[in-house]
């Protein structure tokens, strides 16, 4: 019979795994790494369930682990050896069974993938994981104003990348 922790883990996997894989993919630009990262996240979550004191929500806690796992993976020596400039079109060529996404959606997702890490993190947590600024601050261990600033900057960068034009007026 499953222990309480195991039950809790299974619930977490059921609830978050797909979103977690998508988020890790955007972060790592590699589907198999993304799956590994999601798996690693759940394993770490399970191992530290005793330490989880409920100061933050379960989702916040899990996202914090996931972001750290992704960061670790990006720091890995061999991550740097591999060309991670994979495009979303490449992903779809590899899986023709699925309907082609819209050009706009590919462009938007691609530009998110191209964002510097600190901006990509806040966009993913806010706009994809629907987390509030305060929760993101907890995940990234930075202040709420810093999150807001990063979000603002990330939005401008995305808008600029997608619509062209020049930077803000000086």
């Amino acid at each position, binding site marked *: 019979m499953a222990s309480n922790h*195991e039950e809790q*883990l*299974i619930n977490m*996997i*059921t609830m978050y*795994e*797909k979103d977690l*894989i*998508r988020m890790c*993919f*955007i972060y790592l630009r590699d589907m198999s790494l993304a*799956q590994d990262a*999601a*798996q*690693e996240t*759940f*394993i*770490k979550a*399970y*191992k530290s369930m*005793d*330490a989880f004191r409920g100061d933050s929500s379960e989702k916040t806690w899990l996202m914090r682990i996931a972001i*750290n796992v992704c960061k*670790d*993976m990006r*720091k*890995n*020596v*061999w991550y*740097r*050896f591999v060309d991670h400039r994979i495009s*979303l079109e490449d*992903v779809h060529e590899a899986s023709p*069974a*699925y*309907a082609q*996404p*819209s050009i*706009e*959606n*590919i462009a*938007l*997702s691609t530009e*998110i993938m191209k964002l510097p890490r600190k901006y990509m993190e806040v*966009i993913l947590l806010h*706009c*994809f994981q*629907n987390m509030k600024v305060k929760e993101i601050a907890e995940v*990234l*261990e930075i202040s709420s104003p810093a999150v807001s600033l990063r979000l603002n*900057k990330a939005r401008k960068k*995305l*808008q600029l990348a*997608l*619509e062209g034009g*020049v*930077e*803000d*007026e*000086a």
Partner: protein
Amino acid sequence: MKHNYFEENHIRDAIEDCLPEVSDMPSLCYSVMREIKGEGKVKKKISLGLVLAIVLILITVSALAAITMNAHYESLIEVESGNGVISGWSVEDKLALIDLMLDTGIELDEDQLTQLRSGALTKREQGKLATKIIASYYPPRTNDFTTVDILAKEYGRYDTWPLELKAWHSSLREKYGYSELYGGSSMAVLPGDGDLSEEEAIQHGHNCLTEIVGLEYSYIDTLYLSISFEESSIDGSRSWLLNYYEKDDIEFQDVIAYVYFSNDGKHNQCGLGKEIGERVSEEFEDLLTNHRDTFLTVEGLAAFAQDLAPRINEALDNDENVKNWPKRFAKIPYAYPAIGSIPQDEAIQMATEAACQYLGFTKQQLLENYQMSLSYRVYAETGDEYRLCFYISEKENSEALSRFREGEFPFCVIIRMNAFTGEVFDMQESNNRSINQLGE
């Protein structure tokens, strides 16, 4: 019209649309559970208090003062290996670390220490304050505050550590199961009999950079080399990692060039870091975003013209991509006011009078409706000039903006003035809203 990508679930929908196959992937449940069951007992968390107690006993019994610091660091690495980044440690462990810092003679902010021990803080607040106190002495490089930051106080940044120190730190983390709990697929090691020596690796790196990347030896010699030797915990392969930085890049932020190669010859990669264009564009953006108040002044712009502008122009000469704004700014001959030129406040006063006359405003009306910027330039044809721009700011002058839209006010008035005599030799208005606040 600008599209709002941030409304509702636009980004979420876009990512889901782009990755439909994720929905059909088999659940991770099975693989995660198998991993967990296969692993047996989860590593027990270790308390810093307990470890320190053991260390203190060891030190007392053996009386080997020389090992104190190493034992101290080892104890921290042991706790880190069981508990992760320092900001995530329990309050008790953080307090134990602070006590240890005090015991070793480190001076910390008395007020913060009093507040920490006042009993008035919640556990969470206490934890945050403790992290702040620790970080005040051991400044962290990132949010991932680790023992690397603590060791950096004594040994400098990780990038500068010798191979022996990196290997020692890695071996302790390995000993206490850091990678088991927190990932990391490689560890720093020392080269052995079958490996290239450090000197040979450096020579190989230099050869790659000259032969493949095309750098000159004389240029490579001006760079700082950060070298590591790592072993993959996945397949045991061993690799040299050489990163080259500008010597004044004390934060080790921009890799100028890199060479990574494995001993088995399977991997060999070298290249340049970010291009100059990318770096100068980022630097410019930082100036404009984080140092705007000092940057957009006569002195700030003159400093820009001496330091960043030449690098932007160098990138442009190399046909690199540079963003539009830095490109435009770099073309302008900003300079420090020359000896004998009229003072800035005098130039402002004279230009204000000229603008009031031109617009038919009182000084007060002018200041209510327009913002003002000032720069000093030296043109080959016309010599030294002050250039003042009175412009409507969308944020500060909303009423003036409406009147501009109704055609009553110009969007900006640009005044050019001889920097020595104060003679206004050109005054123009512009209704081009894409103009910047310096009137460019």
